């Protein structure tokens, strides 16, 4: 009976999470050090940070940057990716640029943006976009290259308008690639955003984490991390999963 109980994926996930917290508690009790606070201590700090409005403010600032830079990178990346995927000459010409931008370290772009444009908000966003954009372009370009020629011919012979062809023939084929770019994009962007904030902003998660580092406040650091991971999980469960499900409903 217990094994049947275990087979439920949700129970399994809850159990594994519980085990992680228990291990954490055990280690904290054994070490008895300020550098590893107990889960209960972290939960208390988390609650206080939420109640004081400090965490929502900084988390909000980071999320706002995440949304704006993500949107810009995705829209531009999809457009350029489709263009490069459809035109061989353009692709051959700009391929080197892509390789170069893919390999410039994130830290370099961030520093350069701040040096050239100053420690301002849109320089921060620009730095994130420049880091993310090449990834989106490459993924969408691959997707465009695999577009089904038969279906495009069908659309042409039935005189589909450009818009109709894009919405009904091209976009559904690109969807898995867009989802892949979205997932890898979110993971990449939020890591870069923290660095951007740490280096040149006076609010946001990165700024706060830097502050806690200087104060050696590990409890707050962990509390902010928990909040951040929870938000990213929520985005996955509430937005990405349903989008996936809707787009996959026709598959056998």
């Amino acid at each position, binding site marked *: 009976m217990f094994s049947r109980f275990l087979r439920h994926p949700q129970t399994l996930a809850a159990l594994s999470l519980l085990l992680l917290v228990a291990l954490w508690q055990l280690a904290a009790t054994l070490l008895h050090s300020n550098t590893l606070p107990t889960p209960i201590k972290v939960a208390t700090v988390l609650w206080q940070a939420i109640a004081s409005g400090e965490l929502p403010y900084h988390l909000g600032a980071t999320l706002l940057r995440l949304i704006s830079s993500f949107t810009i990178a995705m829209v531009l990346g999809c457009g350029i990716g489709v263009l490069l995927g459809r035109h061989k000459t353009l692709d051959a010409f700009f391929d080197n640029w892509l390789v170069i931008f893919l390999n410039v370290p994130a830290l370099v772009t961030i520093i350069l943006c701040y040096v050239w444009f100053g420690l301002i908000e849109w320089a921060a966003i620009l730095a994130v976009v420049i880091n993310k954009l090449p990834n989106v372009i490459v993924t969408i370009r691959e997707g465009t290259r695999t577009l089904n020629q038969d279906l495009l011919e069908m659309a042409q012979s*039935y005189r*589909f308008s450009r818009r109709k062809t894009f919405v009904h023939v091209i976009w559904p084929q690109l969807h898995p690639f867009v989802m892949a770019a979205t997932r890898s994009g979110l993971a990449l962007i939020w890591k870069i955003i923290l660095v951007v904030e740490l280096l040149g902003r006076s609010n946001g998660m990165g700024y706060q984490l830097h502050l806690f580092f200087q104060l050696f406040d590990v409890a707050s650091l962990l509390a902010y991390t928990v909040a951040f991971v929870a938000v990213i999980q929520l985005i996955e469960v509430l937005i990405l999963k349903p989008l996936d499900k809707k787009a996959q409903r026709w598959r056998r």
Partner: protein
Amino acid sequence: MSSIDIHIANKTFNADGRQHCAIADLQIKIEPNQFVCLVGPSGCGKTTLLNIIAGLDSQFQGQIALTEQARQPQIGYVFQNPRLLPWHTVRENIELVFEHTPPAQLIDSLLAEMQLADVQDVYPQRLSLGMQRRVSIIRAFAINPDILLMDEPFVSLDAPTARQIRNSLQNLWLQRPHTVLFVTHDLREAIALADRLVFLSASPMQVVGDIAVTIDRQQRNDAEQIEQFRQHLLQHFPAINSLL
């Protein structure tokens, strides 16, 4: 209703860096509302010819004149593979080819004629190949095309299914006649459907025979009649043998 004047002086492919001539000096004139079967060995360039007529391939020398007053003729194309959009249901696939509001009644009656009314809200990948083929035939018929191009639409179907779809196709065509170009390498099928058979040679493709089918439309279901006509053809035009 549209006539088709085909004149292709030259159509070449680039295969492994070498120029391969697929069609050379091909001339066919097709009358309005004629049902023409193009019969020839596989690989002789029949699909290429249909693609040129449909405007999908413009890399050739010559010209295709589609006569239709004051507007571009509507073309319905039934491809060799059904080419349905897998993310749309059967009905959505049919409705999508209309520029404006799709005619619900017409689509209903076509779905009923092809015995697909029950599956109109199903996604194509859940259907058998035969059913998908029927959907693609409805899609081509629904727009009431001036010209209907069909590229071996019944290939790889079992005989009863093929016969059933063929009958439906004939019924639909009799109700709403239009110019049809039907590619096949099955001579019996061609005789059962066509007003006129055009035999094509292996590449470079040329017309090697152009024969009217004289069997009355009412008797096209009679296998014996078809067989008689086929024997008659093979006796009188022995050149056909090498094409089949």
